[in-house]
C-alpha cells in the first residue's frame, strides 16, 4: 500500500518509488486516459459500421471464405504476450531494475508488435490474392477499415516503443521519459482490448 498516494491513475502507479513523478503522472495520465476513451468511441463506431455491413457481400467472398482461425488465434496470442512484456517493462521501470531488463522487455514488446503487423499484412495479402479487396463489397470495406485502423494504431505504438528506447539511451530514466513510457503502456494495453473485440466479433463471430 502506498501511503503517499491518495489518488491513483490508470496503469501502474509509481507511488512511493518516485513520489515527484507520481504527482505529475496523476494529471498527465488522466489527460491521456481521456484521449484513449475517445479513441475507443472511434473504434466502437467502426464496429457499428462493420455490424451494419454484415452480410453485405454482394455475392463476393464472405467470412468463411477468407478467414483462417489459426492465423487470427496466433495474432491474438502474440498481442496478449506483448501486453505481458509491456507490463514487465513497467515493473522494471518502476522498481529501477538494471537497465538491460527495461530495454529487454521494451525490445521484446516491439518485436512482438512487429510480428503481429507482419502476420496481419500476410493475412491481408492472402485475402487480396483471393479477390477479397476493400472495394469488392460493403462488408470487406468495413472489415478493412476496422482491422487496419487497429493495425495503424499498433504501428504507431511500435514507433513510440522504438522512440522510447532511443530516449532511454539518450536521456536516461528521467521523469519525462518515465511518463511517456507509462502512457505508452496504457495505449498498448488498450489496443489489446480493442483486438479482443476484433477477434471475438469479426473472426470468431464470422466463423461460428
Amino acid at each position, binding site marked *: *500500500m*502506498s501511503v503517499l*498516494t*491518495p*489518488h*491513483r*491513475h*490508470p*496503469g*501502474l*502507479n509509481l*507511488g*512511493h*518509488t518516485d513520489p515527484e513523478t507520481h504527482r505529475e503522472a*496523476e494529471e498527465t495520465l*488522466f489527460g491521456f*486516459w*481521456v484521449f484513449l*476513451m*475517445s479513441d*475507443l*468511441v472511434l473504434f*466502437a*463506431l467502426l*464496429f*457499428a*459500421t462493420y*455490424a*451494419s455491413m454484415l452480410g453485405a457481400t454482394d455475392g463476393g467472398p464472405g467470412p468463411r471464405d477468407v478467414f483462417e*482461425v489459426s492465423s487470427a*488465434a496466433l495474432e*491474438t*496470442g502474440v498481442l*496478449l*504476450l506483448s*501486453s*505481458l512484456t509491456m*507490463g*514487465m517493462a513497467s*515493473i522494471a521501470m*518502476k*522498481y529501477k531494475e538494471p537497465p538491460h531488463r527495461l530495454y529487454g522487455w521494451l525490445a521484446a514488446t516491439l518485436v512482438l508488435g512487429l510480428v503481429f503487423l507482419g502476420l496481419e499484412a500476410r493475412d491481408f495479402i492472402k485475402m487480396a490474392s483471393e479477390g477479397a479487396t476493400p472495394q469488392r463489397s460493403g462488408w470487406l470495406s468495413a472489415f478493412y477499415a476496422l482491422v487496419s485502423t487497429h493495425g495503424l494504431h499498433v504501428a504507431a505504438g511500435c514507433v513510440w516503443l522504438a522512440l522510447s528506447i532511443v530516449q532511454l539511451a539518450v536521456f536516461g530514466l528521467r521523469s519525462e521519459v518515465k511518463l511517456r513510457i507509462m502512457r505508452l503502456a*496504457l495505449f498498448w*494495453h*488498450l489496443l*489489446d*482490448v480493442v483486438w*479482443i*473485440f476484433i*477477434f*471475438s*466479433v469479426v473472426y*470468431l*463471430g464470422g*466463423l*461460428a
Partner: protein
Amino acid sequence: MSVEIDEHEKRRELRSYVVGFAMAVGLTAAALLVVVAGMASSTAYAVIGVAALAQVVVHFRFFLHIGWKRSTRDDLQLILFTTLIIVLMAGGTIWILGNLHHRMM
C-alpha cells in the same frame, strides 16, 4: 520506504500481470475452442460474447489497474460514461440500419 515493502509490492504487482495474462489466455482459448469444435451457432455466440466481456474486465482490472477503490480518480466514471456513449451511438446505429435493412427487404 523500506526495501521489504518494495519487494512485497513488486511481487504483488508482478503476480497481477501474470494472473491477468493467464486468465486472458484461458478466456481466449475457451472462445476459440467453441469455434474450432463447431458448436451450434447460437451457443457459440453466447460463449464468445461472455468470454469477450469477461476478458475486457480482466484487461481493465489486471493490466490497466482500474478498480472499485474509492481513491481511484474519475477514471472509472469516465469508462462508464464512454460505455454509455458507445451503447447509444453504436447500438443506435446498428438498430436503425438493421431496421432499415429489414424494411427494404
